[in-house]
């Protein structure tokens, strides 16, 4: 056998560097909730790298002339009776509850949300399938709501839930406090249409479309995603899809 000393040292250095990187990533919160298992290394590399690179970057914004004339809304499962009852009243009582690690848990109606400061953005929404459209989204910045209820210092993630029980997701505080992360109620200047997630959709423009969950009714601020569902941070990994979708 001829394993040279150089090879042994190189292997040792690589192994030590890898182990150190894993420990640092864990401490800095750079391991995604679905960062274990077969695809954990790839997911962790992607999330950690992008989190470091993109903590303050802004999603690209476009000119009004670039807004797609033909946006596409992916079909959703039938919306239940509760949704229909709220829809019959033009969604005025659509509730958004905020709880978890906050000083003042609260619930806001859609009318209240529309009275809050508005953020406008013309951004690209890309589906993981490959298609996309550009639209103008208007809504209340999530950071504004989090300030209103007083996020506690140990907060690490915001879990958001749809009126469709199977749909829930979460983002880290870098995305939650990001100026372009909004609870959108207006689409291309009109009330957000139901097929596009109306009356209230989480819009996370630096990630793929599936992170922009439709029909949001509840936000929970947390320090631990293991308490939710199967502990993978979202219904997406439970269905086989990655939690982090900045790709």
């Amino acid at each position: 056998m001829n394993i040279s000393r150089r090879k042994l040292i190189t292997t040792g250095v690589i192994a030590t560097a890898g182990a150190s990187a894993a420990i640092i990533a864990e401490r800095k919160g750079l391991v995604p909730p679905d960062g274990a298992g077969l695809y954990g290394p790839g997911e962790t590399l992607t999330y950690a790298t992008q989190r470091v690179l993109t903590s303050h970057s802004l999603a690209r914004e476009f000119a009004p002339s670039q807004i797609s004339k033909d946006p596409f809304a992916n079909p959703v499962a039938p919306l239940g009776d509760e949704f229909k009852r709220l829809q019959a009243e033009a969604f005025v009582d659509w509730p958004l509850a905020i709880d978890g690690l906050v000083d003042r848990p609260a619930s806001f109606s859609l009318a209240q949300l529309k009275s809050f400061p508005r953020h406008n953005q013309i951004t690209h929404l890309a589906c993981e399938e490959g298609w996309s459209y550009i639209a103008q989204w208007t809504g209340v910045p999530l950071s504004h709501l989090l300030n209103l209820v007083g996020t506690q210092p140990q907060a690490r993630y915001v879990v958001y839930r749809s009126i469709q029980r199977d749909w829930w997701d979460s983002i880290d505080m870098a995305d939650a406090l990001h100026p372009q992360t909004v609870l959108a109620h207006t689409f291309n200047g009109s009330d957000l249409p139901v097929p596009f997630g109306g009356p209230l959709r989480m819009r996370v423009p630096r990630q793929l479309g599936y992170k922009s969950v439709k029909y949001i009714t509840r936000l929970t601020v947390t320090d631990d995603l293991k308490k939710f569902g199967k502990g993978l941070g979202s219904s997406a990994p439970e269905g086989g899809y990655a939690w982090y979708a900045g790709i």
Partner: protein
Amino acid sequence: MADSVWAPVNTAAVADTTAPARHSALVRATHWITTIAFLALLLTGVEILISHPRFYWGEAGNVNTSPLFTIPIPASRGTVPTGYGYVLPDQNGWSRYLHFQSAWLAVLTGLLYVAFGFSSGHFRRNLLPAASNRGDATSYNRLQRSTYLFVIFVLFPLVIWTGLAMSPAIASVLPGSVAILGGQQSARTIHFFVTVALVVFLLGHITMVIRAGFRNRVRTMITGRL
């Protein structure tokens, strides 16, 4: 004499085991890691493509947009008009996980290979067409050298670039990298064509290996000895 590819090198059959290896250990290791990563990327890329076998030019495009072209295959989504009366099963979840993990493997391996290629003189000695062609079985001709360099320094960087340009997070940091390609849908379309070019290269590469003696060449890329 039918030496197995996997058998230890027979010193009687190979005259001079002290001669320099045909391929260095690093070239052999990175070659096979890249092979595995590329095949995984190709398989999962096809699976992802099946969910929307339509291509567009510019920033945005969807089923309401007229496509640049479509691939005439059935889709794994019922929302895509394909002309087929059935929908294939959705394989995007694991395909995407594996696609990006394999992309990391390919990129990190590629960086190691390129760093080695420059520092060791591998590019200059074995791949640069200007270098003297020894004209024997251990050297590549001008066309082979140019092709390898094109794959290493044009196709691979381009497939990585167009892949990254489809990422909304990367686009937020490097918006120019998307704009210069013509938009995110253009990046996806170019990504597809570069993949086609890489597959054409792969088929040509395998054809040449077969014509030069498949077992011998594969063994050389595994053991380093001719």
